């Protein structure tokens, strides 16, 4: 079905095997003026935030006017980018070099979910009505803790920034980091789920008593409202009804916005990057993503495999190194060279395993170009570190 593939039984693992299939050309993606939005998605703990920030910085230093929207950056990284204050507005990042001469710039912001939600309400409703909604206890809980709100708001903010950028020409590239979702697909589903809920019978049911006509009250409705009152308590039901009644006029606006953002994501200017680590779980999630994105006709640009173990140097196999270490230990139990050989063996095994995992992914998704980023010894918390990650993403290898 696919083109013949190189033998997998190769025992030598060398730099040339770093990417088996198609290589993702990160610089071409960043330099292409048609790329207007890059969305980084993937499961939690794979380095999405760092990847987003590194891509944004690299693009800026190559001359693009970039804004990066992050969700929950590590504190020191946020500090170094000057975005530890949550004010929901992009702020210029100091210390961006290189591209300045070419007109590049970098702004960054950290998403404040509740504030974004509030802003949407404020922009859609009259001041009195907005107040009524913002003060409703049900809204307060919904806007700060509903499991899909963060995903939805990230997309909402993306839509806003994009509209502003189109109007004012402030940015020509938006890089978005997605929330670490319970399910990797939450952020794609959230707008749809919200709309379908808002269209649903349940809303009509909640609205029915407020709107009066008893003809709505079929037997089923009666059971439902009674049950709700019984289980949730009448107070909660009243709060919910007030909220839904007040929110009713905004629903259309929400649905429209959700639809627009969805279309924006499907447009040609958008590129999705699926971020993963070379581990079975992360790659499985990545596979879901790839399938889901193609199902929804979202433009997938490629896969980024972060934190790949560094390539071993030399051509001694794990078994060879272990055997040699054993021989050395026989003469000298504390042999330091034996320790070094075992270290080498661990590294070879780790890389072999990761390579195998990547090859399996590639076998199932041969169309997905991949960039492999070797793990750095330390954590990234400044622009220099991001620059280094950016270079690795683009395939530059330290000499």
């Amino acid at each position, binding site marked *: 079905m696919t083109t013949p593939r190189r033998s997998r039984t190769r025992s030598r693992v060398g730099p040339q095997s770093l990417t088996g299939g198609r290589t993702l050309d990160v610089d071409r993606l960043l330099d292409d003026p048609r790329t207007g939005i890059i969305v980084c998605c993937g*499961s*939690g*703990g*794979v380095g999405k935030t760092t990847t987003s920030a590194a891509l944004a910085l690299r693009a800026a230093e190559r001359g693009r006017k970039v804004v990066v929207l992050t969700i929950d950056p*590590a*504190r*020191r990284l946020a500090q170094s980018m000057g975005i530890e204050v949550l004010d929901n507005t992009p702020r210029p990042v100091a210390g961006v070099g290189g591209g300045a001469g070419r007109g590049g710039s970098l702004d960054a912001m950290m998403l404040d979910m509740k504030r974004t939600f509030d802003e949407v309400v404020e922009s859609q409703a009259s001041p009195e009505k907005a107040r009524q909604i913002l003060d409703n*206890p*049900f809204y307060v*809980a*919904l806007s700060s*803790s*509903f499991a*899909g709100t963060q995903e939805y708001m990230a997309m909402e903010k993306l839509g806003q920034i994009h509209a502003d950028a189109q109007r004012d020409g402030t940015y020509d590239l938006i890089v978005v980091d997605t929330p*670490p979702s*319970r*399910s990797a697909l939450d952020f794609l589903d959230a707008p749809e*789920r919200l709309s379908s*809920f808002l269209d*649903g*019978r*349940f809303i009509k049911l909640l609205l029915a008593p407020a709107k009066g006509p008893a003809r709505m009250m079929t037997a089923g*409705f009666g*059971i*439902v409202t*009674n*049950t*709700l009152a*019984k*289980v949730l*308590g009448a*107070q*909660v039901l009243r709060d919910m009804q007030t909220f839904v009644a007040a929110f009713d006029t905004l629903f259309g606006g929400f649905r429209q916005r959700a639809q627009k953002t969805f279309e924006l994501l499907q447009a040609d200017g958008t590129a999705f990057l699926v971020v993963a680590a070379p*581990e079975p*779980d992360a790659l499985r999630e990545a596979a879901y993503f790839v399938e889901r994105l193609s199902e929804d006709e979202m433009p997938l640009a490629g896969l980024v495999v972060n934190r790949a173990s*560094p390539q071993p*140097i*030399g051509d*001694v196999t794990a078994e060879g*190194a272990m*055997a*040699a270490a054993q*021989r*050395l230990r026989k003469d000298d139990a504390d*042999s*330091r*060279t*034996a*320790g*070094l*050989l*075992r*270290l*080498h063996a*661990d*590294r070879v095994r*780790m890389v072999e*395993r990761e390579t195998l995992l990547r090859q399996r992914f590639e076998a199932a998704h041969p169309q997905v170009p991949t960039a492999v980023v070797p793990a750095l*010894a*330390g954590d990234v918390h400044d622009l220099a570190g991001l620059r280094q990650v950016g270079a690795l993403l683009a395939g530059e290898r330290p000499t």
Partner: protein
Amino acid sequence: MSSRDFPQVRLHIVTGKGGTGKSTVAASLALGLAAAGTNVLLCEVEGRQGIARMFDVEPLPYAERRVATGLPETDGQRGGVVHALHIDPESALLEYLSMYYKLGRAGRALDRFGVVEFATTIAPGVRDVLLTGKVYEATKRNSRNKKAITYDAVVLDAPPTGRIAQFLGVNHELAGLARMGPIKTQADSVTTLFHSRRTAVHLVTVLEEMPVQETTDGIAQLREHGLPVGGVVVNQVRPRDLDDDDLAAVRAGAVTKRQIASDLTRSGLDGKAEMVTGLLTEARDHAERRALEDAQRALVDALDVPTYELPLLVGGVDLGALYELAGMLRDQGLA
């Protein structure tokens, strides 16, 4: 058998930053706790079917299934039984309605009107209350309930550290929202269990800056909410092929190429320059990483909670590996 370090604890809640291996730790803990003659329940709540994958069984339904035999005792005695339960909020809600309200028909009506979907996806906090409510029910079950299995311990593979306080404490939020009524009563009982000495929240981390930071923040947050902090499991600890002396020598540049070359030749390998330089470079990388890990380890030690250590398994984690990890947790006293 109960946990050696946490003898009073019936409910072990395992959290951790994404990617630190909390599900692996939860599964190993369940195997380790299942001593001869006991029943342990392992619950998952995030809809991932991770348990089914780890134990290589069919995807789990909303029902308690036997998935494995616990880790054997040192005297060779056969271990107890590990059961697993995949809790999804929809089923939990319908069960809750029929159990407490005898609402078979109304439950279905609710489903038809999209209420179940609303309650489990949109309504703030309800989802978490349903999930934790089921865990509560399984933990508090006793011999009066003839039809159901009574568990000696329950292990919950919980949401990640960033969400854990909300997940466990969300009852307050909801209890505030529902100022009275049965949901509030239910939420209050759950809260009481979570805040009692029968519960411990264990945090899984790896020796990297962000996960350790998140663990530190998580512990502070749990304590702030009065939730009982258990232990910290330092997971995926890299092999320690070099001891402190070796590391010091590598860092000081005291390991000579000539020595390595002669050792390599003596061991039957080709002591050519590329290999010698390679080994030295790898050793320096390793020394750098170890220094960072040691710094993070010191931060973990300063947290003043019991710590446990599990190695990075180079070959990946299969069922056999879970038993191996379970043995280590038992040796170290968490199980």
